[in-house]
């Protein structure tokens, strides 16, 4: 049974938008997406599913909500896409309200279930198809839609204006230079080796992370730069709201910034979905074979500079730590081994999660879920009890989260379930443990 509290959540982005929708428009949009925007995969997936329910235990929402069958991945498809197909798009607004709730707030498209389906059915893709339909109908949770609107207007997720952006970088440069004299954040340096890109919440609310990375780049003598204009934000919530047109514009701006600067490669901060958008979904939508230059995730970059000895580690973190495997860089990039190498290099007492690697549970925040905002927070917390138990079992005091969504999501989990641990990005651990050139510490 759907949780009555969740079903009663009021979200203007869904409820108000549904009021103006005619059944003809709903039918047209659904049929357009089902016939014009999807082809073999959708058909094969719908034909192949034998309704065996073996995907159920892949899903953290199913496990967290006492094995409620309505939260099994297959049930989420049944309650959304199967009905749309069966009724040939003839669904009412009540149905769409439920479909939007399921697709946006009860599935994070983490793709764990496609590893549990014996046929490899990409269930997350089916849910994303539902999101696409909702987005074309304008039925998207308000907070999530706001991030998409921000992308459309400012090319970044959080309405950061260009003067704010440059000002924040200069402020962080000053702060970092206090610790490491002579440090710079080079803007618009053509021909640099690396363009570094971040997600908009960094300049908006976590600016310290930019200073951290500047110190790391400085310590290893990297030739790097950041763009002063549009394209600096690598996040892409439009990918998750289903507004693929805006998603494509954002990724194009991001890669064009790199090409304008003629950099050799892009290094990105600790974020998962941004990797997915920049490397997979964005280029695919734009009709590119792949990104024009290499995208290096922060975890890969840290691995390179630590394993090659470029970054010297002066001391190790003593508290017990564990790590969250972010879906988009582990199931999406296979970085789990490098991630553990880095953590073991920085920490004395690493305690792994069970299950781990590609099989680690989703954080229930990524995939746009946390971006659906406060109205859905309680639902999100109910959906992720299994992660709270998993973290508690490790006995760790620090949960390392090399992804912004995992970071915020697990912070919420720790608060809600009183776990008494705290979350850290890897860059925060590196700053605490590295040798800082020219500073008093060395």
């Amino acid at each position, binding site marked *: 049974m759907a949780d009555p509290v969740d079903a009663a959540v009021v979200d203007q982005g869904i409820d108000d938008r549904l009021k103006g929708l005619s059944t003809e428009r709903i039918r047209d949009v659904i049929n357009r997406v089902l016939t014009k925007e999807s*082809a*073999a*995969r959708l*058909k*094969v*997936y719908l*034909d*192949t*599913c*034998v*309704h*065996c*329910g*073996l995907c*159920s*235990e*892949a899903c953290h929402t*199913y496990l967290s909500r006492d*094995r409620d*069958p*309505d939260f*099994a991945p*297959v*049930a989420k498809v*049944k309650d959304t896409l199967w009905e749309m197909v069966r009724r040939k798009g003839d669904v009412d607004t009540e149905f769409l309200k439920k479909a939007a709730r399921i697709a946006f707030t009860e599935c994070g498209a983490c793709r764990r279930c*496609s*590893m*549990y389906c*014996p*046929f*490899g*059915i*990409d269930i997350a893709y089916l849910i994303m198809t539902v999101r696409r339909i909702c987005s074309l109908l304008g039925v998207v949770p308000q907070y999530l839609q706001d991030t998409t609107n921000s992308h459309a207007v400012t090319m970044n997720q959080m309405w950061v204006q260009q003067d704010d952006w440059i000002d924040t970088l200069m402020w962080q440069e000053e702060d970092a230079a206090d610790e490491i004299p002579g440090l710079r954040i080079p803007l618009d340096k053509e021909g640099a080796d690396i363009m570094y890109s971040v997600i908009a919440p960094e300049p908006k609310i976590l600016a310290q992370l930019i200073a951290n990375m500047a110190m790391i780049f400085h310590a290893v003598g990297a030739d790097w730069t950041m763009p002063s204009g549009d394209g600096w934000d690598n996040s892409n919530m439009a990918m998750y709201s289903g507004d693929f047109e805006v998603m494509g514009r954002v990724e194009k701006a991001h890669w064009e910034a790199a090409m304008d600067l003629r950099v050799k490669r892009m290094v990105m901060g600790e974020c998962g979905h941004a990797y997915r958008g920049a490397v*997979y979904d964005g280029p*695919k939508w734009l*009709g590119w*074979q792949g990104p024009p230059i290499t995208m290096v995730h922060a975890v890969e970059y840290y691995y390179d500079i630590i394993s090659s000895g470029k970054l010297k580690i002066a001391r190790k973190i003593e508290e017990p730590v564990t790590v969250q495997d972010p879906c988009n860089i*582990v*199931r*999406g*990039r*296979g*970085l789990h081994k490098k991630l553990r190498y880095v953590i073991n290099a920085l920490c004395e007492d690493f305690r792994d999660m069970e*299950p781990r690697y*590609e*099989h680690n549970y989703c954080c229930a925040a990524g995939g746009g879920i946390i971006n659906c905002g406060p109205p859905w927070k309680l639902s999100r917390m109910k959906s992720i009890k299994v992660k709270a138990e998993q973290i508690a079992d490790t006995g760790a005091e620090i949960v390392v989260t090399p992804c912004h969504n995992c970071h915020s999501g697990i912070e919420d989990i720790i608060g809600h379930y009183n776990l008494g641990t705290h979350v850290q990005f890897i860059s925060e651990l590196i700053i605490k443990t590295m040798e800082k050139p020219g500073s008093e510490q060395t």
Partner: protein
Amino acid sequence: MYEFATGPLVWIAFILFVGGSIYKLMSMLILAQKEKSVLPTWNAKFGLRSVMHWVVPFASRNQRMHPVMTVVSFVFHLCLLITPLFVMGHAVLWKQSWGIRWFSLPAWAADIMTLVVIGGFFFFFVRRMVAPEVRNVNTWKDYVLLLIVVAPFITGFVAHQQWLPYSTIIIAHIVTGVLWLIAIPFTWLSHMLWFFFSRSYMGSEFGSVRNARDW
């Protein structure tokens, strides 16, 4: 009646089964060309790697999590495919109609394998009714399909044991077998056709694009 069942009816069944399967495969190939990512992503090495982890019992985590389901599924599917191909009665028909000599199973082995299929049917039928996460997504169609799958095995077994008048039960066996064949391309029994494609596509995407494992 017997002549019709063993003549035109069987022809219709094979035409619909083979023709339907080819039609489905071809139309899907055309549709696959419309997708930007499907054909360029396909990769033999990673596709096979994934298929192997799912056709070998207990090679994937989900199979290890459900040991009973895994054992029943593998044994059921093996018997389901091998028995009709190699049961002696069918081998005789191949010989009579086409002059093809065929390996055939000893009668006792075919009997046991048929009983395994029937036992597997009961397992799946009850599982669909009892397990909440399965019952929730099943409709009457799923149960009917299971009945279509098992019917030729029950009728075949009864015919072989000669518990009922042979001339009647053999027609029931042929008719249910015909239904079984026709259902393959047009229902979720087509997972027989699609398994290799969907699994190897997902394996390719995980392996060659995402550098990760999907088992």
